[in-house]
């Protein structure tokens, strides 16, 4: 099988692409100085999350480039400096609001050889690949397909009220899946997408991290 050349977009660029396809991305700022960082954190309100990003940097968590639940300016300054001194080629940092939800889901797109674009939804977090509690559908999907995807998970109960958290806003989640399933048709370059994790909190669905892999049509 001929393997296709692909390019993985940074989190920030991935989210830009998704935003352009009509997917709601939580407010976040791409900052390049500590000063900017502090300014926007005030705007967002604490606690915040700070992530170092750069071309070709994958597995940010493992590299210590993700600092979560930063409670105040003091903590933010410390986090900023730690990320800078990580030794990675940091091009900038993403500043986001910290979402305290305990439930993590994953949604994504993959191109199947036989069926073309396929959408996936499932249990997210660190156990995704071990538990494989996911469901697939041929994209694009309709609402009824999305509903069935949710109900078919072994951990479908996580979508109801859970440990003091409200039930997931199903309507918003379903509409997110329907929109996500349309992305590879709006943008032919899209090979794979990961929205991971997706954290529901109160009435909202937050896409906390995203990865878009494109066909590399560049210089070959």
């Amino acid at each position, binding site marked *: 099988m001929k393997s296709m050349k692909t390019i993985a977009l940074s989190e920030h660029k991935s989210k830009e692409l998704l935003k352009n396809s009509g997917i709601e991305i939580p407010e976040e700022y791409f900052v390049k100085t500590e000063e900017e960082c502090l300014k926007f954190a005030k705007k967002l309100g604490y606690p915040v999350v700070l992530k170092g990003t750069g071309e070709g940097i994958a597995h940010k968590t493992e590299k210590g480039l993700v600092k979560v639940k930063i409670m105040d300016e003091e903590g933010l300054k410390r986090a900023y400096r730690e990320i800078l001194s990580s030794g990675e080629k940091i091009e900038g940092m993403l500043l986001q609001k910290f979402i305290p939800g305990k439930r993590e889901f994953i949604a994504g797109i993959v191109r199947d050889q036989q069926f073309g674009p396929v959408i*996936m939804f499932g249990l997210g977090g660190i156990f995704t690949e071990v538990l494989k509690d996911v469901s*697939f559908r041929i994209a694009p999907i309709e609402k009824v397909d999305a509903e069935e995807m949710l109900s078919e998970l072994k951990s479908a109960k996580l979508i109801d009220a859970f440990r003091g958290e409200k039930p997931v806003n199903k309507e918003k989640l379903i509409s997110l899946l329907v929109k996500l399933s349309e992305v590879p048709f709006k943008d032919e370059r899209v090979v794979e997408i990961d929205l991971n994790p997706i954290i529901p909190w109160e009435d909202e669905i937050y896409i906390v991290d995203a*990865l878009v892999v494109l066909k590399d049509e560049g210089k070959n």
Partner: protein
Amino acid sequence: MKEKIRFLFYPESIAIIGASTNVAKWGFIILDNIIAGGYKGRVYPVNPKVDSIFGLKSYKRVQDIPDEVHLAVITIPRDGVFEVLKDCAEKGVKSIMVISSGFSEAGREFVELENKLAEFGREKRIPVAGPNGQGVFNAFINLSATMAYFNVKPAKVSFVSQSGNMGNTMIQWAKKYGMGFGKFISSGNEAMLKTEDYYEYFENDPDTDVVLSYVEGVDDGRKFFERLKSLALKKPVIILKGAKTAEGKRAAESHTGAVAGSYDIFKSAVKQAGGILAENPEEMGDLAFAFLYQPLPKGKRVGAISGGGGWAVLVADALAEEGLELAKFSPSLMEELNKLLPYYWSRNNPVDLVAERKEGIYQKVAELVISEPTVDIFMALGIGYGYSGVFKIDASKLIEPEMKAQVKNYVRERGIGESLALLELKEKFKKPIIAASDSMFAEDFYQNESLKILIENGIFVYTTPQRAARVAAKMYWYAEYLRRRKGKFEE
């Protein structure tokens, strides 16, 4: 093209190209089976080397046949196939089944040849099945143009299979259990006509109510998906997937890619399109029987009766595992049951009739349970009761010889009475009745008339509560699938 596929299944005249007197050759086997099967149309052997075959006039070339040819079955070796195809086109043959092997399955160098076969069909507008297929069968016109000869009663089940011997498997099953069978086509390498083309044909075929499909791979996933979706909204499609474990190779950078196995995706596509997956041939038969003869359930609540404690427990477990529910019984139903059953009965759904059951009790309890508004599916366990007693009676040293005939007849009549009552309830309440009984394990189960009556009249009797529960669950799943899409797709 889809109208022309009809000629493959309903030919009025068939040419066997490569007809032979050698009993080991396909050209003999197919011809022999067509005749043995009592095919009602006209049969023309084609073989340039002989003038007649078993008393039938043989033609040098298909063009020499003084009649229209609806179906040409080609059994000659691969290297002669294209010459013969040209003859078929010249003759104006309406459809072609290529039995001959040695195409893409023989190696990469023959893929091109197989593509040529498809091009030929498209260019001449002739539907070509195969190559490397095992033939076509249609019980509605006694057509057995297949490797095996089947004498099975017609039923509205149609099977497209990417493997010939899966056809034998399912038709034998259907025959053994009195289900009947309709059509079978061995689609072979699917050079031109693909599984999804047959789906399209079956969708509008009035002799098809249930579709079976054995799939190893699909060339155009999207087309397969769309055709399946369209068909499944009208008729249940039961799919058995082979080559499940051959994982598609995919270089993945995302988690999504890493967890997406090719069978997972195939399975999801089938579900999304409304297809019903069977895990093995036996389950395919189990499902085909139920979908063919039972109404779809309106919900997932099951009312069950059993003739023993163990089975009542097992069925409750199996229903829970399959995601079905035991129906809640109303106080008035419980009151009625209390009147009928001994004081020590379980007071629960499933209703255990306990081993020592009074005459006529099965019928009465069955009617009470099935008529309960909360019951969507009725499960009749322990049917065929007492038949094993017939042999015991013969062996008995205590029952006097002159009494034996009388006792045996009593047991027999009781069993038959229960079965007839179930068949009546099926008509009266239009709810699915799924039966299971350990009597099906008996070596001579088919001499048990109470089982035979049920099976031959559309209530299959499964060997275990698990099999029965799985069938019920898949019927419910399909009914729900349709219900959720009805607003949009109602005809």
